[in-house]
């Protein structure tokens, strides 16, 4: 690789890369993000390589594994350019047909394109699919165009031109100013204005300063940062170098959790490639600015997402948060001023520098600018990553993009903001999604997790789940968090097990208040949120558990029994065969009965019983009817009964 010594050489290299690429020649992009890899994308890529050779197209068709475009529900995803044909749910078996028909004959294979579940309308191009059409994908939109292990793909799209602009056309203060004017706020959860943070680090008096990428994405059910790390690592690096220049840092760190092996690999490859081109190292692009980056692996501690804990972990110590102030901007890593931003925040920086604060400003609401990536998961038809301008309504995200709730079930709530977030009920679905509106509704933006829940989700159980998570992840340094969260979990567990007593709700509220007020870091301070927000909107569910020992969602196992209605049972053996504890007795012509003493309430029988029989019933706070007498269990099949009657 040639060393790039000036912005002109960077532009020249870009043109050179483009000139070697025939825009009309077929290019096959296969999503190689973690979700699609789990459903076989690796096999699809291998099949394409083999098939292209077999059909004599070697050298004429380019195949690449790319980052995640977001539509995980329908993976593995294949996009064929230049036509932008998008195939969903592709398997290796489909590959010969795709090469033969679509690549060679330019025929679209109907069964692989998106079909609207209601209108049955087909959408061939990626941009016509409703899931994508209603998004504004500034950050993840390029993922499908880039092989993350190939820096040339990023350069071909104008990559590192923002860096050249910052280094040669802007003073560091101007860069900080542009970011401040853009209104960009931290995407990791706090929502603190990035420009102000940068300004503080820039003005801190010290020779040595550091910049850090917080890629310790730990919220369960959230994977937007991973998609950017895996899919477009150079966009983060470019933002980081610009930030380092603005602040006056010459050393940076990317703190990636080791649970993301592909992200670690792609970021490391990106750093090596950027070094080879002279985009990292000394005298970057001939500007005289020096900057190096090191990757640091997290070792599995949720609390390390908190900035003071993360910095201690970078120093090789246990990540136990410190009280602030001093803030990292004045005393951070090894006591030096340190600016730490989340992955998505850094990835926004090149866009702001290239297109300007005014461009960035046009997206979003008054106090929340730009777009935000959400990971839309749970009881939702279109699970995936969604990037929308701030201010879009929650209803639009859930229904227009997410496609609504699967299985004809009823929507109950959306949980936003990760474990420390809150639940938003149906009545608040029309709120505009931005930092302030979500906070007003009792939830938070957090890092962008969005978990959809339906009528089968118990809100007390959800609160118990999050508080249990936080109790396990509490580092134990300060007692309000260590003890308060643990006790909240104990009370919630009791309630879900039918052992709740009068006064539990009030005690929870008390504990929530003191834990929230007295804890040292954000983990403990926000730990009461899941309890308070579910109490605010779903207090009746708590009351049903405590007073009636009833779980209205039939989710808390200790409060739910399963019973087979002898009138409806057709003795089809389905549930009997699937019961893992052999609690169901019966036979081909013998009505099935659940032995309540053996049943673990796993619910498998309820799920496998065909809907048109509907023989398995869920009961909560109701007595289970006794088994019918043995002689009545012999089932006379309908036809035989008819024959006997005639």
């Amino acid at each position: 690789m040639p060393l790039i010594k000036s912005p002109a050489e960077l532009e020249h290299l870009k043109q050179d890369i483009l000139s070697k690429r025939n825009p009309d020649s077929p290019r096959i992009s296969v999503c190689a993000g973690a979700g699609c890899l789990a459903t076989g994308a690796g096999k699809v890529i291998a099949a394409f390589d083999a098939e292209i050779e077999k059909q004599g197209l070697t050298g004429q068709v380019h195949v690449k594994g790319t980052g995640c475009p977001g539509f995980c529900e329908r993976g593995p995803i294949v996009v064929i350019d230049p036509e932008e044909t998008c195939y969903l749910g592709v398997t290796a078996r489909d590959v010969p047909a795709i090469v033969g028909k679509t690549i060679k004959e330019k025929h679209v294979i109907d069964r692989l394109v998106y079909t609207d579940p209601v209108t049955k309308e087909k959408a061939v191009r990626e941009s016509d699919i409703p899931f994508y059409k209603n998004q504004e994908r500034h950050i993840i939109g390029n993922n499908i165009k880039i092989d993350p292990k190939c820096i040339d793909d990023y350069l071909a799209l104008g990559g590192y031109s923002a860096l050249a602009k910052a280094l040669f056309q802007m003073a560091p203060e101007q860069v900080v100013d542009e970011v401040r004017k853009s209104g960009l706020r931290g995407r990791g959860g706090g929502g603190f204005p990035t420009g102000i943070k940068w300004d503080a680090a820039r003005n801190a008096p010290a020779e040595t300063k550091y910049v850090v990428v917080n890629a310790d994405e730990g919220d369960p059910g959230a994977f937007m940062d991973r998609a950017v790390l895996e899919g477009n690592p150079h966009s983060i690096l470019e933002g980081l170098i610009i930030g380092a220049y603005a602040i006056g840092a010459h050393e940076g760190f990317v703190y990636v959790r080791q649970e993301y092996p592909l992200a670690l690999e792609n970021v490391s490859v990106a750093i090596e490639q950027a070094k080879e081109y002279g985009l990292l190292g000394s005298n970057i692009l001939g500007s005289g600015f020096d900057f190096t980056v090191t990757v640091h692996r997290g070792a599995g501690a949720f609390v390390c997402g908190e900035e003071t804990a993360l910095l201690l972990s970078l120093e090789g110590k246990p990540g136990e948060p410190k009280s602030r102030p001093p803030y990292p901007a004045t005393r951070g890593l090894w006591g030096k001023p340190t600016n730490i931003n989340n992955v998505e925040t850094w990835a926004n920086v090149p866009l702001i520098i290239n297109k300007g604060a005014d461009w960035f400003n046009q997206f979003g609401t008054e106090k929340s600018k730009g777009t935000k990536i959400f990971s839309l998961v749970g009881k939702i038809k279109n699970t995936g990553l969604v990037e929308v301008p701030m201010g879009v309504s929650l209803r639009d995200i859930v229904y227009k993009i997410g496609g609504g709730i699967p299985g004809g079930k009823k929507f109950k709530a959306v949980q936003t903001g990760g474990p420390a977030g809150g639940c938003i009920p149906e009545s608040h679905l029309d709120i505009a999604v931005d930092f302030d509106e979500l906070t007003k509704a009792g939830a938070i933006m957090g890092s962008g997790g969005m978990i959809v829940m339906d009528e089968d989700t118990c809100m007390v159980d959800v609160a118990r789940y999050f508080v249990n998570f936080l109790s396990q992840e509490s580092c134990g340094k300060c007692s309000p968090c260590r003890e308060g969260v643990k006790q909240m979990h104990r009370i919630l567990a009791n309630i879900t097990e039918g052992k709740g007593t009068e006064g539990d709700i009030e005690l929870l509220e008390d504990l929530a208040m003191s834990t929230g007020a007295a804890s040292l870091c954000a983990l403990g301070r926000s730990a009461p949120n899941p309890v308070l927000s579910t109490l605010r909107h779903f207090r009746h569910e708590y009351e049903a558990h405590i007073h009636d020992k009833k779980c209205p969602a039939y989710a808390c196992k200790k409060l739910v029994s399963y019973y087979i209605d002898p009138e409806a049972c057709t003795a089809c053996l389905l549930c009997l065969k699937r019961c893992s504890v052999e609690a169901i007795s019966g036979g081909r012509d013998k009505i099935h009965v659940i032995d309540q003493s053996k049943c673990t309430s796993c619910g498998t029988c309820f799920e496998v019983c065909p809907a048109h029989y509907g023989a398995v019933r869920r009961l909560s706070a109701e007595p289970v009817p006794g088994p019918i007498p043995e002689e009545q269990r012999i089932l006379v099949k309908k036809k035989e009964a008819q024959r006997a009657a005639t």
Partner: protein
Amino acid sequence: MDTAKIEQIINNHHCEASALIQIMLDIQNEFHWLPAEALEMVSEKLQVPMSRIQHTVTFYKAFSLVPKGRHGIDVCMGTACHVRGAGRVLESIETATGIRPGETDADLKFSLDTVNCLGCCALGPVMRIDEEHLGKLVPDKAAAVLKNYE
């Protein structure tokens, strides 16, 4: 224990105390656990007291102070998997293996762990056995899969 390997790992990180976590991760990846002798070697080489090493390796979940089984089962307990029934899947795996999360069975066949998100929420409930992801699990089928492992 391969002491030369451990020495090489420590040297790769230039014997720097700030690289303690990175060194431990490399040793963990190499041996699948942290033998006591390894901790002592690291303590000596980096000039970091054993108390701090113990503090660090017990703080982070990636480290194991006991040997791990031949196959690692990670059941995802992320929120998306939770609302789709991951708890029931975990229970069936516990029953089938006879071990609870964090434990390894007596013949070192399986180690069972829970993880907070594997990031393939579209497949939930999901678990990972060694490198393979298994998605859309139901309790009985999840337990049945284990029979394929030796």
